[in-house]
């Protein structure tokens, strides 16, 4: 490709991307929905879940290889939901009030081992009840209060809310508009120009990604105001990276599906049908490891799970566990966009 051609593609990319962003900015309702709705959603979540989840059974994060301690907890299957989580995930779950208690022990000295029951200020009674189970079995169990801020549960929903914003923005933000452009014969007209399919797709993708990053930043800002915990600069950058990769991955999936299902209505139905299991299995509502092993393996490879994990890890001060979900998202993005660009025929009318 000649230098002139490259410059023409770059210029066209800029014109298309800027026009797409400007299109949204000109529509008050679009701006309100893009930026205002997520803020309202977070506010609603903070109000509804200010005291934690009202209907959930007592949830315990178990980081314990002691057979006797595990057996003691297992005697109360109806009263307790037990999630085997390692130290990092368990602390994060407790910090976000997704679990009331965290049980920690090791198996080195069996009966003689001390079982620690970590709990927040509101879960002391639950901790006492669980301690009784251990004591009845002759185990040494101690309570360890830890600080859990009010609104922690709602704060714990923030990464999921950001992730789902990116998921739906990507899924509906490229394939469906491209089908609409095809129906209106804009794509066919553009094939009579030097415009390359890659330029068109990347321009639409970039505009969508920019809007979604803006949405995520608004959610981070609202979250900081509501939950009195401002994310660090590195956390913001990591969230932006996760959102960008998430939008790319899901937009690629939308485009790949649009190359197969060409009717806009059917395509929309298919997107809704594919989004539902991805959302449910994303780990936002229950730990993926709780699923049957085959399903858990599938769920861990889903882009939705990687996106939720990446957003959670990005907002964790340690940033640990961020690389793997980002890598999964990058693989999904490369594969789906590559497939979509390869298969979506601009000339078809």
């Amino acid at each position, binding site marked *: 490709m000649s230098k*002139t051609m490259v*410059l*023409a593609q770059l*210029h*066209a990319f*800029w*014109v*298309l991307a*800027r*026009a*797409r962003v*400007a*299109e*949204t900015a*000109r*529509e008050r309702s679009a701006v309100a929905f893009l930026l205002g709705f997520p803020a309202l959603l977070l506010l609603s979540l903070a109000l509804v879940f200010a005291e934690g989840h009202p209907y959930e059974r007592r949830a315990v994060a178990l980081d314990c290889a002691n057979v006797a301690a595990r057996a003691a907890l297992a005697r109360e299957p109806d009263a307790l939901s037990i999630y085997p989580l390692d130290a990092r995930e368990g602390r994060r779950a407790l910090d976000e009030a997704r679990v009331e208690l965290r049980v920690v022990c090791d198996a080195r000295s069996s009966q003689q081992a001390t079982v620690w029951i970590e709990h927040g200020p509101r879960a002391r009674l639950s901790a006492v009840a669980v301690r009784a189970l251990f004591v009845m079995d002759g185990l040494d169990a101690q309570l360890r209060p830890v600080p859990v801020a009010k609104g922690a549960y709602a704060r714990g929903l923030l990464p999921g809310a950001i992730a789902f914003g990116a998921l739906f923005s990507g899924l509906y933000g490229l394939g469906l508009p491209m089908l609409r*452009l095809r129906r*209106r*014969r*804009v794509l*066919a*007209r553009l*094939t*009579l*120009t*030097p*415009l390359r399919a890659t330029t068109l797709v990347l321009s639409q993708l970039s505009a969508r990604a920019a809007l979604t990053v803006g949405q995520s930043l608004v959610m981070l800002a609202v979250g900081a105001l509501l939950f009195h915990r401002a994310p660090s600069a590195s956390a913001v950058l990591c969230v932006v990276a996760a959102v960008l990769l998430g939008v790319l991955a899901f937009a690629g999936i939308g485009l790949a599906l649009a190359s197969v299902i060409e009717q806009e209505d059917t395509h929309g139905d298919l997107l809704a049908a594919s989004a539902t299991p991805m959302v449910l299995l994303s780990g936002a509502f229950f730990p993926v490891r709780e699923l049957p092993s085959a399903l858990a393996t599938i769920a861990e490879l889903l882009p939705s799970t990687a996106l939720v994990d990446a957003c959670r890890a990005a907002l964790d001060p340690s940033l640990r566990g961020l690389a793997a979900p980002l890598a999964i998202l990058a693989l999904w993005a490369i594969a789906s966009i590559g497939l979509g660009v390869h298969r979506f025929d601009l*000339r078809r*009318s």
Partner: protein
Amino acid sequence: MAPDHFAARLDAVTVRVDGHTLLDSVTCSVSPRGITALLGPNGAGKSTLLSVLLGLREPDAGSVRLFEDGVAPRDAPRGSLSAVLQDEGAFEGMTAHEYAALFAALFSDRAMTERVLADCALGDRRHTRVDRLSGGELRRLQLAVALATDPALLVLDEPTNHLDPAARRALLERLRAQKTRRAVLFATHDLHEAARIADAVVILVGGTVRAHGPVADLVRALPEPFAQRGIEGLFEHATRSTIDPTGALDALSDGAEP
């Protein structure tokens, strides 16, 4: 006109979709200057023929060659082949200025934006979204964009659809002004439009060419009383059908036999 002197030539082009033959061994050509009207009722295969000619669809058989060097449509020099497609839309949220700027960017011609807006007289509506322009304004903008690269062949697929009479007249006048500059091929199912501006016709019914060539030559060869009625008589003679007084060909069936 020399046999090889054409803006476009279709040789035995056949297109089939799901077992239906949309074009059946179509052979015709478009002169390098002047206006050729592609006539036929709805469903005659006009849009399919134009899609093949523009390289938007590959024929199942036959070939399409453009210009003196006989290139395939997809290999045509940049900007030499341009079009306004049937019911063509635009990026809904774009302004008229952004729409023109997109084509200016693609053809590396910075002056094109202002030239297009001046050409379609939309300078004062440059910041209006294209989906809020009237049908006539949008068609003017699209035609100005199509002409901005000074194409050797301009293809228009029913460009006057959904336009009011004034906008339709203005567009036809605009096309008439292109006669001496380039080849214009425009599809229509309105004989009155064709009669006003066409130098040549291709009559297509049921995917087959019933007549093609310069209007004057074809009409001169007609028997009376067809010859007196110009293009309408030509069409009636070629298709053995009766034309509606409005000149619309919508009511003709695809399978009308000569």
